[in-house]
């Protein structure tokens, strides 16, 4: 297995985010046509938009919180030549948790389930950060590739 495979879950997470923008524009256009948008204030004020738009805005904002740490950790693992099957499994599971989280957020938005999906991602990311620390410590102690 080459270390480049870590970029597969990373690019899937990027694609997920890009697709949510498509959903955003679709809902925005629909709500504008239905006359549910305050057209005067929409350029500056979030509350000019109806809830159906706000929920997608919130999800997009969320995609730039934990996932950003995920990008950093993935890149560091790649740089350290530390992409083993544990890292691959964790990264894939993280992205799956994010897909589940986004699906809940953009459909039922049932908070207990949404929180559960988010928490799963948080634990996996914590594990990945721990893995990175472990790899760094091994190198500091004179083991490992670099």
């Amino acid at each position, binding site marked *: 297995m080459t270390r480049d495979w870590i*970029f597969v879950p*990373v*690019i899937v997470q*990027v694609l997920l985010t890009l697709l949510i*923008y498509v959903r955003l*524009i679709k809902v925005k256009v629909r709500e504008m046509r239905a006359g549910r948008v305050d057209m005067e204030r929409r*350029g*500056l004020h979030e509350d000019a938009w109806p809830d159906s738009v706000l929920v997608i805005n919130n999800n997009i904002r969320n995609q730039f919180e934990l996932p950003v740490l995920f990008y950093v950790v993935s890149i560091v693992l790649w740089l350290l030549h530390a992409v083993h099957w544990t890292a691959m499994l964790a990264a894939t599971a993280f992205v799956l948790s994010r897909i589940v989280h986004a699906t809940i957020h953009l459909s039922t938005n049932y908070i207990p389930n949404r929180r559960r999906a988010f928490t799963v991602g948080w634990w996996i990311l914590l594990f990945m950060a721990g893995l990175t620390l472990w790899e760094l410590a091994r190198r500091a102690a004179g083991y490992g590739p670099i």
Partner: protein
Amino acid sequence: MYGNLIFWPAIVLVAMTQLTYAYLLRVKVRENRAGRVDRERWTMHEDAWPAPVRQVNNNLRNQFEMPLLFYAVCFMLWALEAVGIVALVAAWLFVLTRFWHAWIHLGSNRMRPRARAFAAGWWVLSFMVLLVVWRLLGQAVT
């Protein structure tokens, strides 16, 4: 090294974001001197600031959305040694759309042109993502 050229557009976008902060500070000082800021609430509440400040705040927030995906994609293109003329042109185009978007956002803030600039960036970035996918698929086959 040829691949390192991908960091030029990335760093230009970083610099643009930094300059937007400088602009934010100027607008904040100006509005504050003019007495248009609610100084009781300004540390905690966005709506303590007048519209010109919130406009810059909104743009700054935006610089930490799609551009972050762009930075990640640039790094992956570099790491996968997939930086060619196509990737470089796309990356510069993306940064251009971001300048265009910020120019509108911080100026007239008219929604239609702003949405158009944003969408152009989205298309270019999606294309760059496809370059990464293409490269990964190529590695899977060989």
